[in-house]
């Protein structure tokens, strides 16, 4: 099972859009290639936007959402996770563990638990035979929940805008990933950096992209197709549909599918292949 965590401590960069597009794109691409295509989307953000988009609801109570797993007795976390999984409204193969506003309270209560970070990682073992892919959306901060999401992941993707402040913050995220790797001794890796909301008409954005492309650390990690800024994304959100359902020929849909394709390749291709 591969679990992909989308993270960036800055808000509004497109983490949720990327998470839900990745989750649905994986289902479509894997099914098209006759591969096991069941995908689990886990929403660790208390804003629960990924949950709203994929299930049409954001009023899931604490007992129906991820918080219940995180506060369950460790030996029951797996069975609790299985019980909470709900179908998405997008695709029969896309399932969701809903997030809810109660996650803020859960985040505070996790302070009392020294083993909090491995809670989700352990719970995910109970569904490892049912899902080959898990996508985890995170909140815009380095909270305990975000740490827990990173620990549960095998791969981390950072969506980032090619603007000055955002690119400055990128270094902090990379350091956080390193800290998680060292502290919890887990083999999670930074699989890629995805330029999002990219507006090629803006000179500064073009220059920043060029700068990062030529950087020795970031360059090889950049995904080759930036996600362009595209009004179809807003319309898709408005219709509670994925970008592929709303307008599969839009520039954003095409770029997101190219990203999904490249991610699958990076994740599955053995190192050095």
């Amino acid at each position, binding site marked *: 099972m591969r679990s992909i965590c989308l993270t960036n401590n800055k808000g509004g960069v497109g983490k949720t859009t990327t998470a839900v597009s990745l989750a649905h794109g994986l289902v479509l691409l894997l099914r098209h290639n006759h591969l096991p295509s069941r995908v689990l989307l886990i929403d660790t953000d208390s804003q629960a936007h990924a949950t709203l988009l994929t299930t049409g609801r954001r009023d899931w109570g604490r007992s129906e959402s991820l918080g219940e797993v995180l506060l369950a007795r460790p030996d029951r976390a797996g069975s609790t996770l299985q019980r909470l999984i709900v179908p998405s409204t997008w695709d029969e193969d896309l399932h969701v563990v809903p997030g809810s506003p109660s996650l803020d309270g859960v985040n505070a209560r996790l302070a009392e638990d020294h083993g909090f970070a491995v809670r989700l990682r352990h719970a995910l073992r109970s569904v490892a035979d049912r899902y080959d892919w898990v996508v985890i959306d995170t909140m815009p901060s380095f909270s305990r929940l975000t740490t827990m999401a990173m620990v549960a992941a095998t791969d981390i993707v950072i969506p980032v805008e090619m603007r000055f402040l955002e690119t400055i913050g990128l270094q902090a995220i990379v350091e956080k990933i390193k800290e998680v790797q060292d502290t919890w001794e887990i083999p999670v890796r930074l699989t890629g950096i995805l330029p999002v909301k990219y507006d090629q008409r803006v000179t500064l954005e073009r220059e920043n992209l060029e700068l990062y492309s030529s950087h020795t650390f970031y360059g090889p990690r950049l995904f080759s197709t930036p996600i362009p800024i595209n009004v179809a994304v807003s319309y898709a959100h408005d219709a509670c549909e994925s970008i592929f359902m709303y307008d599969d020929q*839009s520039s954003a849909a095409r770029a997101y599918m190219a990203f999904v394709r490249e991610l699958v390749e990076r994740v599955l291709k053995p190192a050095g292949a």
Partner: protein
Amino acid sequence: MTKRRSQGTRALLEEMGSLEGIAETAPDISGRGVRVVNIVLDRIRPDPAQPRRVLPEPIRSEFLAGHLNARQALERWEALVAEEAARLGRPRPDWRALLERNPDDRNAETFETDPPGTPGPEEELLRSIVATAATIRHGGQVSPITVVEMDNGSYFRIETGERRYWAHHWLNMWLSNGFDQIQCIVVPAASPWRQAAENTSREELSAIALARQLARLLLDLYGIRPDYSRPIPNDWYRQALEYRVPRGEGDALRAALGGIQRAQFSRIQALLRLPDSVWELADRYRLEEKRLRYVLKVDDEALQVQLVRLIVTRNLSAERVRQLVESGQLPAILRGAAPPADEERATVSERVASRWPTLARQVTQADLSLVADQWVKRQKPDEVRQQIAALRRLLEIVEQRVQK
């Protein structure tokens, strides 16, 4: 509300190329994602969106809604065949003899199990299931059915092989031992395209089944999939009338429908406009598109149903149907050939009246306990009660007349 503009994702996904090159850790359909296992029949459910129907429609709806179990559904079907056979003046099929017949035994006598005359559609379809059951009984299950795991393994939904599933239930019902499991290939994800390939390769689909198949594939191209948790209403398929074939998908779609031509595709799609009652009749009697296309030109639903009944009962050719519809006198003609409810009742009455005296004489000589045993065994309690009530009325009438 914004309007969806997606053209289906197939073209986009084709552009992405195959993942074959990285399949070392991502197995294809013949690898890790697939397993072959024996699964208990009770854990398997037919696909409610399967375009090709096996059970008669009313029984199918009740079965999918959970009002009947598989055994009850087959018993109901058997009763339906018995009614149909009586209506057509045919003997009731000897199911046990059919099940005993080894399909490999080319010298087997056939006259006992194949009475003369043309069986009705219900009998024909049930006979084909029983023939499959006989093949499985004598030769084993040659090819496994394909299923998809649902609700985290709580049950499996059939992708292909529903007839083999019902054949196993039939064997289980008649022979009880050794047929409560069926060999399945558990595929990681259901594909309506694979199902379509199976449907069109096995035998010719009825025009209505082909229309449903077309709708299912076209909707799949737009990412629209049925809610498998309940029976699929015909209106779900009718959504396909609002969608055009996405650019670049026409050839693949027509190939999946058995290689039909572009013009034929449009005519089949148009059949989706017919009402439910016409779908049911036309599907059961396997009417061809060339006869149904003229039914579309009739405005009134009641007339459409009457016309289809007329096509069935009189076996009208496509040309004759065209002439009827274009004559402008269809309502008058159909009134003349009107719903034969009374006429049919009269025919049944005549048939029973002519046979009853002989049968009544034989009743006086028969072992009544044996007759009662067979009667109760071969029919449902409710049906037997209805027949007893009718017989009581008959006896009262006869007694009154005898006394007079």
